[in-house]
């Protein structure tokens, strides 16, 4: 809305050139990722403290998570991260169709992740392995096993919301790309989304062993 004729269509008036604009966007996004790390950080702290207080309970409770579902989801997210990176690379090379394919692949894999998550959650809800006062499962020895499931649902839940957000944004990117909004000169939104998506993957890389493997 603020363009003047001398500028490319995507350049805003208060930047001197596209490079400055792209660099600003990227720095802004990295700072946003920093706030994401600290947002999740609160939950990691919560996990670390209660784990250090009740290591046995955490160990007993983690045995009730399905390692294979978790591992599958890890693989799914890693591959989706790869397709995201390749989507950016394709746009850098000007191969718009490849970009659309890779982005669609990413969305598909993200949906697979959510479907697996759905099966995991519904199984736990069925058994009563629920957070806090909703917990009614019997069979986990140790103090306050409901706290383990509070941590589990909060951390994977917050992560899940980020996956959903990613699906929405990437779908929007697919539409924009197919309309030809991006080019090898200007693909900042794809690059930004890519960084975000990799962070979502990165957080899962830690969630997976903390919950499924060592508890």
């Amino acid at each position: 809305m603020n363009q003047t004729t001398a500028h490319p269509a995507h350049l805003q008036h208060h930047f001197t050139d596209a490079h400055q604009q792209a660099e600003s966007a990227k720095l802004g996004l990295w700072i946003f990722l920093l706030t994401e790390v600290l947002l999740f950080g609160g939950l990691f702290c919560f996990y670390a403290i209660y784990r250090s207080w009740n290591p046995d309970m955490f160990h007993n409770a983690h045995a009730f998570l399905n390692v294979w579902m978790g591992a599958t989801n890890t693989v799914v997210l890693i591959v989706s991260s790869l397709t995201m990176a390749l989507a950016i690379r394709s746009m850098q090379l000007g191969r718009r169709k490849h970009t659309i394919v890779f982005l669609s692949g990413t969305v598909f894999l993200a949906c697979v992740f959510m479907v697996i998550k759905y099966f995991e959650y519904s199984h736990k809800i069925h058994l009563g392995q629920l957070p806090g006062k909703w917990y009614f499962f019997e069979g986990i020895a140790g103090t306050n096993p409901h706290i383990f499931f509070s941590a589990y649902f909060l951390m994977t839940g917050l992560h899940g919301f980020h996956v959903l957000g990613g699906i929405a944004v990437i779908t929007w990117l697919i539409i924009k790309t197919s309309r030809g909004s991006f080019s090898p000169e200007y693909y900042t939104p794809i690059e930004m989304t890519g960084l975000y998506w990799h962070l979502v993957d990165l957080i899962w890389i830690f969630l997976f062993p903390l919950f499924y493997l060592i508890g």
Partner: protein
Amino acid sequence: MEHTIPEKHYLNEATGWKSWLMTLDHKRIGILYMIMVMFSFFLGGVFALLLRWELISPDKILMGPEMYNQAFSLHGIIMIFLFIIPSIPAILGNFVMPLMIGAKDVAFPRLNLASWYIYVIGFCFAVYALFTGGIDTGWTFYTPYSNETTTAVIPILTAAFVLGFSSIFTGLNFIVTIHKLRAPGMTWFQLPLFVWAIYATALIQVLATPVLGITLALLMLERVVGIGIFDPAMGGDPVLFQHFFWFYSHPAVYIMILPGMGIISELIATFSHRRIFGYKFIAFSSLGIAFTGFLVWGHHMFVSGQSDLAAVIFSFLTFFVGIPSGIKILNWMATMYKGSISLDTPMLWALSFLILFSIGGFTGIVLGTLSIDVHLHDTYFVVSHFHYVMVGGTVMAIFGGLHYWWPKIWGRMYNETLARIAVVLIFVGFNVTFFVQFIMGTQGMPRRYYTYLPQFQGMHGFSSIGALIMGVGFLLIGIYLIHAIFKGKPAGPNPWRALTMEWETPSPPRAGNFEGAQRLTHGPYDYDKVVPENALKQYKTL
């Protein structure tokens, strides 16, 4: 030569309410913030006066204990989350900072407007809570009390949560702006110190506020769902909540004071007409405070039942916050040495800051000391220390800054006589209100008390008189500042003969800030080399 208001400027280049509510101009967004934040200040001030009125006597005057508890909670929440945290960055940072670095706007203007709307949403939640049962937890929301009280905890937590996002976005925007949009040729060490302070503040905003977000979210979930992390009845740990809360809220204190220090650096240099002494030390002390501020939160918890090891570490690190603050004060004084000092109103605010903030700092050392804090924790000594830093520090700086930049913002000058009367009223009123609270605190008067033992009545009464004086002072400021917007004498581009870049524009500036690309011609404090040519002194000095 008389000054005139330029024909076209940011206030009249577009008209209609839509041009304001949809604006992407950082100056207009600064004004939008000013309206909301100052209204919050007024609201919080009304609660403060109600509190002081009630405390004139240990018996009931206006309200019962439940009402009183809500009034002090709302006073704290409004003043902290709605007023003092957004105040300087969102109003003056927004308006002045891009001008100071020669930028046409902040890096992300739409995000900037969005943060204002987010602020308004947060404000609405707070007002909603006010009318649906209030809140009586204090601004600290300590569990398990906040978990079981029947007041409107959820709306107020939502308000604080939402306001946090506004704060994060502002901080993010400013960091990128300062990194990427400086005028060509402007290096980091040619930045005005206010910009350094805003930068350090923004770092804290983006680093600490997300933790507040997750803390408040967890507390809401604890209340709604019962996740058992902070609730002792379910095996949770209430002291853990205090860690989570203070990890944000202690650095937040530096979100409140650092920009104030930045303003004082500008004021002292301008009104002493002297190159700032120890530029790099002041700049780095801002970053030092921002960093150390993250390592000391546990000093709010010396008697909370945290481990002794933690208490000792936190106390030790606390003393290192005192040092950069001391550096700043001493450098400001050295700046005045052999200066050419003019005691205009903004300078009077700066001097008030210097005196009151020193007291706040010294009493901070008292509180950081382990053994003494055991006695003084949660007494009026803490209340007084906090107000000496926040009101004696930040509020003095806000009003110093508003008076300093008022001619730039509106192009018109306020009434200097009334302004000086107001400074004196507030300085006196403030000390009357709060100095006596140090004595009450050391004598053992606990905070958040609706009623008290008769031996404190004299001091409480004295304190309340001071609050009234302050109230009158702030009212006076409101009147003459608003009057100046419409009827003040045109101020000219540079009434104070200052050298930072915002004074190179006309007052009020035009919508795009500068004609063409701004170039750096001199440093921000080259008072020994440069006399600004656009300056014309109109007002006689004292």
